[in-house]
């Protein structure tokens, strides 16, 4: 899950089978679908085939004269892991995880489908809807039945489309909410420690990095900008951190914070604090945790990023969040009630921070200041947890990507990118992660920033 490797990845050869799919779909069909809808009915999901005609979003190559690429379907189908989300449920590993969970079949279990497909209620599935499409167009862009027609004819504005159910994916806060529903959890979607124990991979997410890695199937050209706002990498990153921290606490406070038999739900805790070899001592004191050795601790990666972000922009809020985090760590050893109370207090601070971040136009100086602050946290050993180190590198990458647009120098940017590559290498194997080495590389990064 590393931006560097993904962005340099060679694209697979064009697949002939894709053409076949395109032939089946057709823009003309979409008109008919629209007329099925009465205004009072809930919007319907029309299925990938409805969007992916070769003259719509299934063009074999980007169309330069068009407002959008029009090959979005191809990009998704060929390079986007979301397209395989359903299929993996049918594979050996998916079936094994289901079996370990006592489920008959992952591909029919709502516990799995809620994230691995567009598991909409039956009444909202159009004629051409296929659960097997996985995480597809309408999973993110919203049910198309009420906007498809005007969207095709160009009669409606962006605002009109949003009003009738198109999802505002270009807004970082909205996008964060959408992505985090699966990549972290929501009311009806949550990867518990039980699911992970059964074999599901650990979740890890950073909004800006994952937008790049997905890969993006849009281009933010002048035409795009005339229609929608383009958030910077730094804003996208910051909003993503804020949303992830808020969602984590919201879920932690909810019933989901309770795991098996009333123990805390392990999914909220740092994975590698326990999952490290017994023969390697992992614990060391950390100023932002204040915990003794030998206790599971809350995964505070996003909160740490926000503390260091605020250190550069609003020291008072940074201190407030730091104090709140220490109290949360302490309370998590006492009782579920104490932990919830402490989490609510952190939530209040996060609300203040979020209002400062959302929609904020970060200047180049601010961005550089935040980058330096994040890097210093690493230098000081505050990202001993693998999850925090991972967030710090993804964040630093997003911040470095923000710099040239604000007038950075190319040689310096290349030097910083080289150091980011080194940091990714330190994180390559989470089972062999060495916090001391990470700190040392962050120190080198800090020197490069001067």
């Amino acid at each position, binding site marked *: 899950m590393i931006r560097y490797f993904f962005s340099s990845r060679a694209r697979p050869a064009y697949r002939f089978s894709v053409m076949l799919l395109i032939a089946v779909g057709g823009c003309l069909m979409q008109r008919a679908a629209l007329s099925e809808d009465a205004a009072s009915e809930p919007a319907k999901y029309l299925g990938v085939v409805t969007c992916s005609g070769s003259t719509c979003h299934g063009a074999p190559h980007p169309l330069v004269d068009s407002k959008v690429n029009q090959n979005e379907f191809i990009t998704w189908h060929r390079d986007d892991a979301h397209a395989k989300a359903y299929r993996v449920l049918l594979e050996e590993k998916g079936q094994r995880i289901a079996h370990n969970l006592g489920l008959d079949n992952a591909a029919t279990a709502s516990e799995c489908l809620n994230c691995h497909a567009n598991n909409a209620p039956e009444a909202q599935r159009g004629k051409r809807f296929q659960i097997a499409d996985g995480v597809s167009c309408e999973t993110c862009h919203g049910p198309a039945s009420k906007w498809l027609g005007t969207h095709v004819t160009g009669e409606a504005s962006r605002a009109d489309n949003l009003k009738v159910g198109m999802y505002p994916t270009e807004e970082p806060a909205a996008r964060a909410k959408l992505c985090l529903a699966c990549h972290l959890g929501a009311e009806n979607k949550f990867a518990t420690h039980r699911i992970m124990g059964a074999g599901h991979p650990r979740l890890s997410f950073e909004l800006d990095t994952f937008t790049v890695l997905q890969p993006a199937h849009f281009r933010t050209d002048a035409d795009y900008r005339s229609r929608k706002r383009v958030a910077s990498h730094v804003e996208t990153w910051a909003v993503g951190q804020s949303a992830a921290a808020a969602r984590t606490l919201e879920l932690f406070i909810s019933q989901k914070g309770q795991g098996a038999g009333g123990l805390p739900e392990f999914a909220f805790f740092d994975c590698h604090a326990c999952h490290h070899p017994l023969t390697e001592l992992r614990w060391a004191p950390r100023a932002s945790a204040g915990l003794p*050795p*030998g206790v599971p601790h809350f995964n505070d990666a996003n909160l740490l990023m926000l503390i260091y972000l605020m250190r550069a922009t609003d020291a008072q809020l940074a201190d407030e969040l730091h104090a709140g985090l220490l109290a949360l760590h302490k309370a998590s050893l006492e009782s579920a009630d104490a932990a919830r109370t402490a989490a609510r207090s952190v939530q209040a601070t996060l609300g203040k921070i979020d209002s400062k971040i959302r929609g904020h136009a970060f200047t180049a100086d601010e961005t550089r200041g935040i980058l330096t602050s994040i890097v210093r946290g690493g230098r000081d050993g505050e990202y001993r947890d693998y999850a925090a180190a991972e967030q710090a590198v993804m964040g630093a990458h997003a911040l470095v990507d923000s710099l040239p647009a604000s007038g950075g120098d190319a040689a310096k940017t290349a030097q910083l990118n080289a150091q980011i590559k080194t940091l990714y290498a330190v994180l390559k194997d989470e089972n062999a992660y060495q916090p001391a080495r990470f700190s040392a590389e962050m120190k080198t990064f800090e020197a490069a920033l001067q």
Partner: protein
Amino acid sequence: MLPLLLISLTGLWYVAASAAEPATPVGLPHERTARFLGVDTCGSTECHGSREPWRNATVAMKERTIWEAHDRHAKAFSSLSSTAGQQIAHNLGLADAAQAADCLVCHTTYVPAAQRGAKFSLEAGVGCESCHGPGGGFLAVHMQPTATHAANVAAGLYPTNEPAARAALCLSCHQGDNVRKASHQLYGAGHPRLRFELDTYTALQPMHVNLDADYRRRKPLASHVQLWMAGQIAAGLQQAAALAGANSGRWPELALFDCHGCHRGINDDPQYRPRQGVKSGALTFNDSAFVVLRGAARIVNPTQVDALRRATRALQVSVNDPGSRASRATALKQEVEMLASALHTYHEQSSDGLAIARALVDEAKAEAPLAFTAAESVAMSLATLIAAEFDEGRLPPADFERVNATLNEIYLAVGNERTYRPTAFAKALNSIGASLGQH
């Protein structure tokens, strides 16, 4: 909880002893009230610190010399000042391990100052009186020409020759109890993982006693199998009792749980399947003693095996739930107590180490995949049982060589906790099962 635990651990012995001599001091050595006189009192060159064995004494008289030269207990105190010791103390927020009660309770003869004699020194580490009891009670008695073992014990000598008493004593530190806490916090700070098998560790200590005719005349000599069994019973009782009282704050005492259930790579293991009805991702307690005890029960008290298994599983599926953990742990403890009673009867009639070894292999196979700590316990147990049978002449040298080769496979399979694979251990069990089956 500790007094209850002690009564159950050494129940039979204490009842018998107190019926004969109501004044006999009870409890572990450090719980006794007489004065502790120090290693220099016992281990002078005229007494137990002789360079060479005495010819006419009932014991070798060079016990201190052996202890000082070869027994790591003698270095228990100085290890607190080693780099590792200081690092652990630092991680725990202690200024000095050599002055912290939490460390000293196991690394020295840690008794109240008022009970320390003139020659007593904490720096002697785990010395004579840590195990044999306060010399102030029995020193004079045991020096009499007419001294008997029974009289010494009545005066306060701790009966280390009794398997149950020795097991309770050793495990109070080597597994930990309510006072000497081998907590997960201690482990997290860097303390090595504890593991123990009574007969093996008695041999490794090394022993400073001659089990000669003279010894046998004075006190009952426990067999290897008896010592091994007593150690496993005590470990099971202590583990169940600790689980019954494991609630402390938001987390149970994590030291009671299977170390490698959590301390393993986070990567997906395609071989993983939920064990014994336990949900994936849940904590599982360290069940090594119970696996071994079920193996023994197959021979000692066959009708109890299923009940033992049910009780262990019932606790395993509910061990994450503080609401039912205590009652199920208590139920499991009662099963182990029943087995201890049955064992008493069994030892009076027979002692067939080979049969128990075979049963243990069968149980370990039935229980596969075994957690690392359970596999390690099975390995140490098999080694003890096989060596005992060889020592006692029931396993001829040629057969011993053959069985021992398969035992090596077992040891290789548990040689490295980081690379342990249950499937490799199961394969080694098949080999040793086959070699044992030919007897």
